[in-house]
């Protein structure tokens, strides 16, 4: 091990994060980099101190932007997974989860909120609900994973996130369904067990399985960004 072994480029430090311990406390790194004079940048980082460190480095902006774009794209790939036609699965939740695991809770939040902005102009109330569900899934998962950077930590994160997301989805449906159909809360509540719960469980299960299938290759991918 050379003297450089513990020092990573600030710009890339955020990116090497799925690998355990690589980014224990990305946010502390970010804040110190932002508050201390850039001239104190460690050697070996290749940072110039201009726009390549800190919470809003150009690199972070680019990562956020591309993940938001990906969430937008995937949110339009909808297909039914239950016989109920208006409840459709879309893989955008996976993008929010991966953003959170790789780049921290704030990334998860930004991707979850901005990723559904285009839907605002198609289904305004539905998009608010989608944002709520995505936030409940990805932010807690990212928070848990931040302190337990292992496959187990990821599993626990997804589990907690999925449970919260299901609760949010059910509560959200109680509020939102009467906007689309003239139904009382009791009528919507009656739909929970036969329709809403199975759909949401199936949706989260697919998210979880796929995120798990891609965990290893994506860790490799993140670890190899320079």
């Amino acid at each position, binding site marked *: 091990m*050379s*003297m450089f*072994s513990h020092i990573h480029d600030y710009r890339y430090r955020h990116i090497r994060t799925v690998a355990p311990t690589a980014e224990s406390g990305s946010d502390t790194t970010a804040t110190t980099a932002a508050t201390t*004079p850039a*001239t*104190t*940048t460690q*050697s*070996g*980082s*290749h*940072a*110039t*101190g*201009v*726009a390549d460190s800190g*919470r*809003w*480095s*150009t*690199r972070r*902006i*680019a*990562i*956020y*932007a*591309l*993940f*938001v*774009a*990906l969430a*937008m*794209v995937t949110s339009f790939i909808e297909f039914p997974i239950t016989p109920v*036609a*208006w409840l459709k699965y879309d*893989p955008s939740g996976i993008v929010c989860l*991966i953003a959170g695991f790789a780049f921290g809770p704030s990334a998860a939040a*930004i991707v979850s909120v*901005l990723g559904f*902005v285009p839907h*605002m*102009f198609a289904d*305004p*109330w539905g998009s608010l609900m989608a944002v709520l569900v995505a936030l409940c899934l990805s932010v807690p998962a990212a928070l848990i994973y931040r302190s337990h950077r292992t496959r187990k930590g990821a599993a626990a994160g997804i589990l907690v996130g999925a449970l919260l997301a299901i609760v949010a989805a059910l509560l959200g449906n109680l509020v939102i369904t009467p906007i*689309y*159909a*003239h*139904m009382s809360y009791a*009528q919507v509540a009656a739909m929970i067990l036969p329709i809403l719960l199975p759909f949401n469980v199936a949706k989260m299960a*697919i998210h979880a399985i*796929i995120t798990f*299938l*891609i965990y290893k*290759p*994506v860790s*490799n*991918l993140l*670890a*190899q*960004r320079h």
Partner: protein
Amino acid sequence: MIDTTIRRLTIARLDNIRFSYDGGASWALDGVSLTIVEGERICLTGPNGSGKSTLARLIAGLAAPDSGTVTLLGRRVFDDAGPNADEYRQARRGIGAVFQNPEDQLVTTSLEDDVAFGPENLGLQRRLIGERIGGALVAVDLNDRRHADPTHFSGGQQQRAAIAGMLAMRPRLLVLDEPTAMLDEVSRAEVLEILDELQARGTTIVHVTHHTGDTVHADRVLRLEAGRVQADVPADRSDEASLSEGTTAQDSIAPVVASHAPHDSNAPQQPFAIVADHLAYGYQNDRQPVFTDVCLRIRQGETVALMGANGSGKSTLARLLCALARPAAGSIMVAGLPIAPAKPKRKQLTELRKRVGYVMQHPERQLFADTVADDVAYGPRNQGLSDDEVDQRVGEALRLLHIEHLADRSPFELSGGQQRLAAIAGIVASKPQVLVMDEPTASLDAAARSRIHDLVRALRAQGVTMLIITHDRAEAAMLADRVLDMNQLCRSNAASPSDSETTETTETTSVSAAKQHHSLLQRLDPRVKMVGFLIVMFSMFAVSNPMQLAAAALLTLAAILAARMNPLEVARTVHPILAMLVLMGLLNLFVVRTGTPLVELGPISITDDAVRFAILYTCRFALVIIQGALFLTTTGPTAITDAFASLLSPLGRLGLHTQELSLVMSLALRFIPTLTDEALAIRNAQAARGGSIETGSPSQKLRAMAAIIVPVLAGTMRHADNLALALDARCYEEGIHRTHWRQLAIRSHDIACIACVCGWLVVLVTL
């Protein structure tokens, strides 16, 4: 040491530079020293991995070395004390950088706004920005397209746009990292011409390239090898340095030409492996078809090279032959299976996937698995082979490409060339009878290229039929039995590249003409429009009686007229969700129990109330959809971003990084089409290996989805890497003071719009 003949200003001076990507285990640059004086044009050459891109980045001030000293534009940016951020910041304002991937350097969807981004970051006054945009666009000959969307440009035009984005910042030094690597010959010439002009105007140029032709007009050619300067010579003597490469290429041609002869004489007896007749293809919504009457016949065992300009439809033809897209007309028979005009049945398609292999452009972008061996096994596994057979296929494929030693490595830790070989092994492992390859050697260095040439020869000896798309005439002649030009294949109205060029320009002029006749809705201030539409759309769900519904319909009709759109055409936007609307109506019919029953069928009864609610709820949701569509069709991404930024800005006082969030949003909207196209390409490429998310058992579907998502994520991060550099090159920095080229102003029609929205709310409350 400064030459006595040149008493010009030193632009950049690097002394004893070392740079390592792996913390000192290996050195990408090892003791490089270099002085560049004003007005010089320097070419940096060398094989892949020689450190030339790294060096370019250091010269552009976009990265700091591990040790040495760097002086850029007279500022000592890096020395033993480390990087000096302030000096770097100042130096960078005078340095422009252009990178290999043209698309990733575009930050927005209007050329004018894109060019303005740099000057805005420099905080220039609005008047000055206007001058800079004009000057820069004239210099790259794109001034007539300033309102066009650069993401729809050809690669060459995009690269010129990227150069314009730099020129608008008036750089004294321009660093270009393989700006022509992804371009065809015509586009390459366009870019080089612009460099010649800049050189004549006295701009200092550092140009990284591996095209020997590019070095002709350089003052000096610097050749790097393994992180060291191997040669630093005046351009006229650089031929000697690159001579060795030339001779190896010559050598490899000789034996292949000889092997052609026996094969050719056999060919006529072989039946056809590919028969395509009178193919026509046009993208949806495009008036100009890609091609109208293409005929192609290839015999079994033949190797055919297909050439032609970008945009002539080569890649489209490849996808048609692999049944990854369907022609508008014509018939196709591949490997004995009919795939057009009749849609192939699922069984035929499965068989086709076994017999036909497809190497997409940049196949390394479809790598997804944990290890190379796993990735290569994907195709054979989808064919349902046993584990032993799969292992055998994988071993064979890896041997064919000489990458057995990489089997257990992650595909993401390989070099670009190795990744390409691994990806191609993944297609070869399916043992296709017919192999279609789309530019398999593009942007590879000589070593990797020759591996692929070896593969083509080996497969040819095995009797595999091959269609290889390439831009490299020498390669085509060397590998193929026959070389075809896309234009020859088109029987009627050959869509020559010049044709497509002209149609492209006429289209954009019609677009810009349309821009001058903006509808009222388009002229609205985007902030007013966005807030207004959102208020109306959200409140639409409060509509609860026929009077309100009538008022809502009137308001929507008024908006349609203000957008100068045909109401019937607008109504069609509801079409995609028609099924959902019907379903919503039905749901309402059955859940509402109040009112007098109209129909009674056993336990189900439909009441008059139910019919009323069904109509009301369906109509108001349909109106929301129409309003959303109106907003999106009359508001471009730049306008949405402007509105977003402006509406968000008050939150800046709460400590929210509104400028950065707006930029994220703007970039996201710009990258949607890019990511969509890439995701589709990857889905096609994996489908060609038998991985489909539509068929198979649930576990197969999930695995197929993973095989698409991982490469899409990899692509997402690759774009982000490139984009971050492009933002750096344009001097964007967190929290800087930016000026704005585009100005928003509330005018009388905006006030009228606000009045309309207020009127609507009053109606909603009172009626």
